């Protein structure tokens, strides 16, 4: 029995909204779904598992019709879906009452349910989120009957507010495979037969690294699976260490030579180091170096606070520094300190 395990497709989301390539990114999420459907069709897959967050929000009727017709097109392959925290089932949502094609099994119950697929000698267990937050460890005490069928758990979660998951407990439950969703980064536990497949396409700038789905097979020899990359885009963090002589233009030029211009790469630039106190780095200038999603300025103004305090021991500056540079000072105080020093000690004075 060959299967593909995916999750967190977040259809309908708009990554990088407001940026020039936003429409492209929105489409890429649908493209990822089409890629998976094609893979099911072309590789003779028997079972498609979708472990929650299929949609970014409650789906529209037309979206359901669209995915349903695609599912219909891959019959006799079977599809099992659960709803995750993002597309959790609300009673009035068309998601809850949609007339799916016969090969689609939507485990819409809020308690453990199963789809029995006799032709595949397989039972897929799972349930759907009916609210966005579930703190109970609902997957901790499961066990599977020894009935000669393959048992798969389709589950969504893995953090404190979305069904905490204990791998040990899951490994002992006796499933042939546990198909997890919610964590966007792929995590595979081959020996235990448990995996988060990750999202097939990165959702936002925090989704660093490559994305794809899992292809596997369950048979007499047990369950074997591997991760298959498929994402179009990839977010890459780049840290730039600036010096007091750095300017926005210099940073841009440096990045232009350093960044791979392939449009599939989207960069998140982080500026660190120390800058000239009155230097303000122009995000828009730096952004021109490529497909830059954001520029995060974490630089510190190049003040030698100890020296300043010593030098100005007779005047307000030292007291100002002492007042705002206390050990318990937060970001606000730090910022206020630098603004104040900049105003008190203008660079040309």
């Amino acid at each position, binding site marked *: 029995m060959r299967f593909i395990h995916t999750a967190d497709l977040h259809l*309908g989301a*708009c990554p990088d*909204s*407001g940026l020039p390539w*936003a429409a492209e990114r929105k489409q890429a999420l649908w493209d990822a779904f089409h890629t998976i459907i094609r893979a099911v069709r072309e590789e003779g897959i028997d079972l498609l598992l979708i472990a929650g967050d299929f949609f970014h*929000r*409650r789906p*529209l*009727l*037309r979206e359901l019709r669209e995915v349903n017709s695609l599912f219909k097109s891959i019959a006799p392959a079977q599809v099992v879906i659960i709803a995750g925290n993002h597309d959790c089932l609300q009673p*009035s949502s*068309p998601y809850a*009452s949609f*007339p799916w094609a016969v090969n689609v099994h939507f485990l819409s119950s809020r308690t453990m349910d199963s789809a029995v697929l006799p032709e595949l000698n397989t039972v897929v267990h799972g349930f759907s989120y009916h609210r966005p937050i579930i703190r109970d460890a609902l997957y901790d005490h499961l066990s599977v009957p020894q009935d000669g069928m393959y048992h798969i758990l389709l589950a969504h979660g893995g953090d404190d507010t979305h069904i905490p998951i204990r791998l040990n407990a899951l490994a002992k439950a006796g499933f042939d495979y546990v198909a997890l969703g919610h964590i966007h980064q792929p995590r595979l536990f081959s020996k235990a037969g448990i995996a988060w497949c990750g999202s097939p396409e990165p959702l936002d700038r925090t989704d660093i690294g490559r994305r794809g789905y899992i292809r596997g097979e369950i048979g007499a020899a047990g369950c074997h699976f591997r991760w298959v990359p498929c994402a179009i885009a990839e977010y890459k963090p780049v840290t730039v260490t600036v010096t007091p002589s750095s300017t926005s233009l210099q940073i841009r030029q440096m990045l232009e030579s350093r960044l791979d211009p392939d449009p599939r790469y989207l960069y998140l630039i982080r500026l660190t180091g120390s800058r000239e106190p009155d230097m303000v780095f122009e995000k828009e200038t730096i952004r021109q170096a490529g497909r830059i999603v954001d520029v995060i300025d974490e630089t510190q103004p190049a003040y030698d606070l100890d*020296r300043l305090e*010593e*030098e*100005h*021991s*007779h*005047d*307000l*500056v030292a*007291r*100002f520094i002492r*007042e*705002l540079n206390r050990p318990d000072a937060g*970001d*606000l*105080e730090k*910022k*206020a*300190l630098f*603004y*104040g020093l*900049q*105003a*008190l000690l*203008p660079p040309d*004075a």
Partner: protein
Amino acid sequence: MKYNRLHINHFGRLQNRTLEFEDGIHIISGPNESGKSTLHAFLEVMLFGMERVRGRGAKNDSYHRFFPEEGSSTYGGVLEFTQDDVQYSIYRNFQRDASGFTLMDQTHKRQLTPTDEEYHRLIAGLTLPLYRNTVSLRQLQAATSAELPLQLRNHIVNLRSTGSGSLDLSGAKETLKKQRKEKEAARNKEAGEKARRLQEEIEEGRLALENTPLPEDYALLSGRAKGVARKREETEAKRERLMDAIHEREEALSSLPRRRQGAQITSAVCFAAAVVLLAVMAVLLVSKNIPGAILAGCFAAAACLAGAAGRRRARKLVVPAASRKQLIRGKQQAEVLTEKLLALSEEDRQLEMTLRQYRETVWQREKLEEEIRRKEDELDGLAETLARNKALEEDIAALDLARDTLDRLSSTEFASFGSYLQDTASTLIRQITGGRYSRLLIDDDMHILLEQDHQPVELTGLSCSTLDQVYLALRIACIDFFWPEDSIPLLLDESFAMYDADRIAETLSWLAENYPGQVFLFTCQNREAAVLRSAGIPFRLIEM
């Protein structure tokens, strides 16, 4: 800090001059243009270096003012002083700009290359503005005594706001205010408003969704509709069949009715004729017309027989009459079916309406969902702007905090400085004036008052020499504030020009007794030396 000795190579009009200094009072005397101001300036540039102005003002800067006509290659000299029990020599050659600076630690016989910070410490923490505001006293440059109080006030305001002198507090606050304005302007206020509105509209949309519930399960509804349609079809077919049957019978019967009627009429006429003939017979019997009666009786019997034959014929037609009953029953059944059909089609209509309503609701709900989705997407699109707004708001909060902190510190700084100044200067003024004035009062607005016999006296009512004494007292109080542990050389430039002899004696003897550091009194008169001599106060006279 103590000046020990200085040597001028070439500086302005002065060249190759060596001056030696002791503790206590020095009178540097000479007529105008003899080089007193030059010496004054020399001391300053030896400590702080030569400021050079570029561009238009260059002609009037110190460098050009004191540029020696001869010996420009040795433009500069040496200043020797003691600080913290170590003897230092500063060598400067201004010709070669800043590179002509050498510092020697004479006690340990070594050359020093101090950082700015180390040098600053080495000259007792003096800075140029502080030096000019306290140590190096020039006479108040006022044309009239009316302006003096104002000058004095400005002086304290300046001292107060700068502390060590190089800070521009109000400028700093202005900068912070301007930055705040810029950040405020950069903030996209509409975005926040829009996000709030979108959020509200999304909530409203969700509420509208809740208020537009699907009437019932669609499958159930359409199942029912299908049932009704089937039943209607069946009924329709049944009725159709019935109507066909009725029609057929009616066709079959339509040829019978006339013959049957004829037979009935014939038998009825025969019976009627028989009755009439019997009546005639009866009348004839009464009238004893026996043959007529027999004849009538015969005819009556014949009519009866004919009637009976007609009746028999008519009875032969009873079968079609039963079929007519069936026909009536069939028609009644057909009527029931028609009614049933009517009811079914009504139900069908109702269901169709409900279904249409249902589809309408589904469509409305989908529209609402689309609208919510559009707004959610729009809200997502605002995220970046909102994040930028948040960062700007944090900046604004930081700018406010910086300004508040500056305000708080400068007011407490001044509160301590001001009250210290007031207390110390009060003591000084009492001592200097021999108790004529008991107190010096400085209010929050930097107005200065003197107290005489428990009465406040405005400065405008005082003589120039008294004002000078107040000025001196304030400056010494400042020196005391900034260097409580150190003794700093005090330079007084023509400071006693306005004083009468008694006032000079009063002030100088107080200085000799109370000022811990050296005193350098620059004067073009001999009065000060004479006063000191007659008062028996030791001093060193340096003639320029």
